[in-house]
């Protein structure tokens, strides 16, 4: 039974430089701010940052791991509020996602997702709508 307040299992992922290179290749997004410190710095960023769409893809996993049929995802949206800086080391950066059911109506559940890197929330208004029984 899905009800308001139900918490979804959280997920922590690690982004290393290698992961950004792989995502750039798979997605075709070769914006240099995702692989060059020099270019990221020129735009006033503290260093190379993760693709927003990679963070968004990881956040979606909290929901798609929870629903059994991917066809039940009806809507999914986020705001990119803070860049996720990925250091050039072996440790990378951890991003932790959690999610909670905020509303259940007419066979639909609205889920709020939170994404935290370090102490900071990196996504705003991250929300998924799924079909429920």
């Amino acid at each position, binding site marked *: 039974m899905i009800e308001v307040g139900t918490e979804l299992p959280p997920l922590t992922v690690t982004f290393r430089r290698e992961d950004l290179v792989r995502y750039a290749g798979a997605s075709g*997004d070769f914006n240099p701010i995702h692989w060059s410190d020099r270019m990221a710095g020129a735009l006033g960023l503290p260093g190379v940052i993760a693709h927003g769409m990679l963070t968004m893809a990881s956040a979606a996993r909290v929901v798609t791991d929870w629903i059994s049929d991917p066809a039940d995802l009806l809507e999914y949206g986020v705001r*990119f509020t803070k860049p996720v800086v990925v250091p050039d080391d072996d440790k990378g950066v951890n991003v932790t996602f959690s999610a909670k059911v905020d509303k259940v109506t007419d066979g639909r559940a609205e889920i709020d997702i939170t994404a935290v890197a370090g102490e900071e929330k990196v996504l705003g208004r991250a929300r998924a709508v799924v079909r429920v029984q």
Partner: protein
Amino acid sequence: MTIDATMVGRSYTAAESYQVGREKIREFADAIGDPNPAYIGDDAVAPPTFAFMLGSRALEQLLNDEELGLRLDRIVHGAQKFSYTRPIKAGDDIAATATITTVRKAGDVEVIMYETALTTVDGDPIATSTSTISHNRGES
């Protein structure tokens, strides 16, 4: 060479459709580190954010509209939303049309919202992607 509210409604269609292959889906799922079995095999569906990539050829057309004068290296992706009619799956042949829906200006920064309709080549809806981007026209 600027963008303003009179450009709302302009539409850009990708010159070619996008044929979704199961190996591309697998490659994308690997790249986002997602081992979900739904993304593997002949009946594979694509992870939800795969839809963004399918809009990129339409976005290219929008960025190439010289009357808008946008530069990719001055764009920041501010927000992204998807609505799905059904999952994208291996074997789909997908057409994309991006339409400018909102333009707001604040000094040198232009906030542009555009909606990309993803359909089968026969016009059946699959998903809609709504993107908000900020373009900085300042000198800096």
